[in-house]
């Protein structure tokens, strides 16, 4: 298992290098311009100056190598310094600077993480927590009314676009009923019961929109996995041992069914860090998704490059985690 993991990690390095290059080339090819959002009153020679000051005058490979150095050496060192309080070198390293905000990209990401994890992560967690029992029940009572209901629920969650559900929720709960805020306050610090309640209130709508979508998908996987396992021989063995239906279902079948589902869940974790572009925009959560889309819209190359690359790292990493998890959960599989 360990050697397998090591081997995969070794393999991940060239993979990620290739991915980083492709992303960089893609963004470089893309026609967006960092000065496009400036007011039109700014004359072209000034725009050209700005572009040069952003380093766009340099040839492609220099910019790529520079980014690599900044991302793989400077930023990790910087984080290390921050966390440990050490001083490494003169501490005067060139960081990955966002063109749009002129501040270090990594700081922006760190700033955005909390709300993304809170909203998107919690939605994912809730989605999973809804999906698993839903999948279990609808598989156990296949074709019963509860299965049909669960199917309908998950289909609706899957098929109605989030910008539609989000807006509908706002019109109902914010405009008509005035119960919930439409704006997510990232400044809110939870210090007491009241602020906690405020935090809950502002999270309800975005979290439920996203959780519905996540629950919809995962519950289908859960149902299929349960159906697969319910017809296995060992279920009969467990019943023949006189185990109660509860323990047959929740110990024997569930444990086996969770194997594929857990890997699906692990594979989905990177999407949390990708943020939820549309939902974040509707509820002004301003998480990583909003950061990415604003970066794209303003052609903020260092930001987009860094974000997408971190996303790629997470994808590769969670692919690995999913495989390793598979090996851990399923004793039959031993990677060597």
């Amino acid at each position, binding site marked *: 298992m360990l050697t397998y993991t090591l081997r995969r990690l070794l393999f991940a390095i060239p993979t990620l290098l290739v991915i980083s290059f492709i992303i960089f080339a893609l963004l470089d090819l893309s026609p967006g311009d960092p000065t496009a959002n400036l007011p039109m009153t700014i004359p072209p020679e000034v725009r050209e100056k700005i572009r040069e000051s952003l380093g766009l005058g340099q040839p492609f490979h220099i910019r790529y190598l520079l980014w690599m150095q900044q991302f793989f050496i400077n930023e990790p060192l910087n984080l290390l310094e921050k966390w440990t309080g050490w001083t490494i070198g003169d501490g005067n390293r060139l960081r990955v600077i966002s063109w749009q905000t002129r501040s270090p990209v990594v700081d922006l990401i760190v700033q955005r993480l909390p709300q993304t994890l809170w909203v998107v992560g919690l939605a994912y967690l809730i989605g999973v927590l809804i999906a698993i029992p839903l999948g279990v029940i609808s598989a156990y009572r296949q074709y019963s009314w509860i299965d049909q209901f669960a199917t309908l629920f998950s289909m609706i969650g899957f*098929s109605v*676009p989030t910008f539609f559900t989000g807006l509908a929720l706002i019109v109902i709960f914010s405009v008509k009923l005035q119960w919930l805020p439409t704006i997510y306050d990232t400044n809110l610090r939870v210090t007491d019961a009241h602020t906690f309640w405020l935090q809950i209130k502002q999270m309800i709508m975005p979290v439920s929109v996203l959780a519905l979508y996540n629950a919809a998908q995962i519950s289908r996987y859960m149902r299929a996995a349960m159906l697969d396992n319910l017809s296995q021989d060992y279920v009969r063995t467990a019943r023949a041992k006189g185990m109660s239906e509860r323990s047959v279902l929740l110990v024997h079948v569930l444990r086996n069914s969770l194997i594929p589902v857990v890997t699906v869940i692990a594979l989905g974790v990177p999407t949390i860090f990708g943020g939820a572009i549309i939902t974040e925009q509707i509820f002004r959560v301003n998480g990583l998704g909003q950061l990415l889309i604003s970066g794209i819209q303003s052609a903020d190359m260092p930001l987009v490059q860094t974000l*997408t690359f971190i996303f790629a790292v997470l994808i590769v990493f969670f692919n690995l985690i999913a495989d390793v998890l598979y090996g851990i959960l399923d004793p039959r599989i031993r990677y060597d």
Partner: protein
Amino acid sequence: MTDAAAPTVASGIDTPEHSLWSDVWYQFRHHRGAMAGVVIFALIVLLVIAGPWIWNTDPTYIDVKARNAWPSFAHPMGTDNIGRDIFAQVIQGGRVSLLVGFTAMLISLLVGTLVGVLAGYYRRLDGILMRVTDLFLALPLLPLLLVVIMLFRDTLRAAFGPETGIFLLIVFIIGITSWMNTARIVRGDVLGIKEREFVVAAKSVGTPSRRIILRHILPNVLSPIMVSATLGIANAIITESALSFLGLGFPSDFPTWGRLLFDGANFMTLTPARVIWPGLAISMTVLSINFIGDGLRDALDPRIRGR
């Protein structure tokens, strides 16, 4: 074998005159959700195809005086804020959305199946192809779209005209960024099927690899592919609408359900018909396709079929 009586057909549990597909069809027919899905989907397709004959209003015609009209005989679903007929737009939009869904699904299916089969069948291709899959999972959709539009728009416009050109681009982008799941699933199944004895049997007969893939492997990974297909249509329709939401996608006078919904979203309280109908159209289509997919999955699964 002189005393061999004519072998009797093994009676399954059922009458002998049924093939694999009639079995699948039987099971499918008894999946209530799937049948409802088929009926609804057929109705939607019919309406969208035959729509222009039923309702021959030009979807781009602007009747400035009738702006923001509520549903009436002249405009069964009302009009938008510059006076275009919503019903005509929903019909026109449906043609595009369904076509996008269908074509993008085909592309993603083709790529996904190809990658999945190659990775699953040829061990040496497995690693590299799965890493390519990782790469595609990590690609940022929007910059990719911008790049591709920039690179190929004029060529395609010259070759196919502006609307078909952009249609092909969008369909291509959606297809090319959504095949990864299919590839993973197909690869997993191929890994299992290539160890099955009938593949060994084909090898022992001397069947070359490409025909083993075509004749033995592909037909047996059909069920995950079919399910991917139904999900793929739904996914493509949703993705197109999300692209519209982000202001990319089709030109403004080229209605799609996603664009109609997006454009109408702000009018939710003023002229609700503007969002209800396209929203309903998307949801019903995706819903019905999903139910069809669900029914197919159950029907194609031999274990479930037996029940």
